[in-house]
C-alpha cells in the first residue's frame, strides 16, 4: 500500500514537472513573440510556398487573391489602419477569416485549404545589416 502511494506521488511529481517545462517553453515563446517583436511594415503573401506579392502595411488596400487551378479559390486580404486581416474567403473551414488582425513582425494568417499564407515582415530584414543605433 505504502509502495503504491509512493508510485502515485512520483507520477504526480513527474506530471507537474512536464507541465511546468511546457508552460515555461510557451512563456518564453510568448515573451519573444509579443514583447520583443516590433510591428512589421510589410505583408507578404505566399501561395503554396511561392511568393504571391508584398503589400505595405501603411497603405489601406483590399486585395483579392485567386488561387487554385482556375482561380476558384478566393481570399480577400484587407489592410486597414496598419493591420492586416482576411475579410472573406470561400474555404471550407473559414478559420483564416476568424483569425485576429495581424501587425507584429512574424505574425501570420494561414488558410490551409487554399494554401495561402500571409505573414507580416519587416522589409529587407533578411538582406540588409542591422542598423546600429
Amino acid at each position, binding site marked *: 500500500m505504502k509502495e503504491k502511494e509512493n508510485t502515485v506521488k512520483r*507520477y504526480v511529481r513527474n*506530471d507537474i514537472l512536464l507541465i511546468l517545462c511546457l*508552460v515555461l517553453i510557451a512563456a518564453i515563446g510568448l515573451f519573444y513573440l509579443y514583447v520583443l517583436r516590433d510591428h512589421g511594415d510589410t505583408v507578404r503573401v505566399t501561395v503554396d510556398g511561392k511568393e504571391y506579392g508584398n503589400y505595405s502595411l501603411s497603405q489601406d488596400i483590399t486585395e483579392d487573391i485567386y488561387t487554385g487551378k482556375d482561380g476558384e479559390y478566393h481570399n480577400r486580404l484587407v489592410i486597414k489602419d496598419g493591420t492586416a486581416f482576411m475579410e472573406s474567403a470561400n474555404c471550407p473551414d473559414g*478559420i483564416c477569416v476568424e483569425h485576429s488582425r495581424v501587425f507584429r513582425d512574424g505574425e501570420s494568417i494561414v488558410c*490551409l485549404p487554399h*494554401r495561402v499564407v500571409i505573414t507580416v515582415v519587416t522589409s529587407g530584414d533578411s538582406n540588409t545589416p542591422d542598423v546600429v543605433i
Partner: protein
Amino acid sequence: MSKKTKNVAFIGVCTALALVLSYIEAILPPLFAAVPGIKMGLPNIIIMFLLYRRGPAAAIAVSLIRMLLVSLLFGNMMALMYSLAGAMLSLIVMIILRRLNFLSTVGVSVAGGVSHNIGQILTAMLLLETAELGYYLVVLTITGTVSGMLIGLCGAALIKHIPNKI
C-alpha cells in the same frame, strides 16, 4: 458470445462514442477567439481509455477509423492529412511514454496533446513550404497542455470507474 465478437462490438461502440464526441466538439463554440481552429480533442478521452485498457492496437484502430469517418461525413480530405499526422505522432509518443511508466495518465495525455499539435504544424510547414507557421506552435503548446490535462483527467476517471469486465 465469443471473445472475438465481444472485442469487435467493443471497438465499434468506442468508435461510435469517439465519433459523437467529434461532432459535439464541432458544434461547440470556438475555445480561443484569437487563434481560431483550436479544438479540445474530446475524442481523445476514448483513445486514452483504450490505450490503457486495451493496449496500443485498439487505440490506433479507433483513432484511424474515427478520423476516416469524420473526413467522409464532414467532407474535408485536406484536414484528414493534418489530423493523421498529428494523431500518429501523438499516439507514438503516448505509447512510448506509457511503456516507460513514469507519468500518470494526465502527463501522458499532456505529452500526447502537445505532440499532436507539433505533428500538425510540421505537416503544414512541409506542405506549404513556409517556416512562418512556427508562430502557431507557441500558442498551440499552451492549448495542447491545457486540453491534454483535461482529457487526461477525464480519461483517468473512465479508466478508474468503468468496470474491467467490459
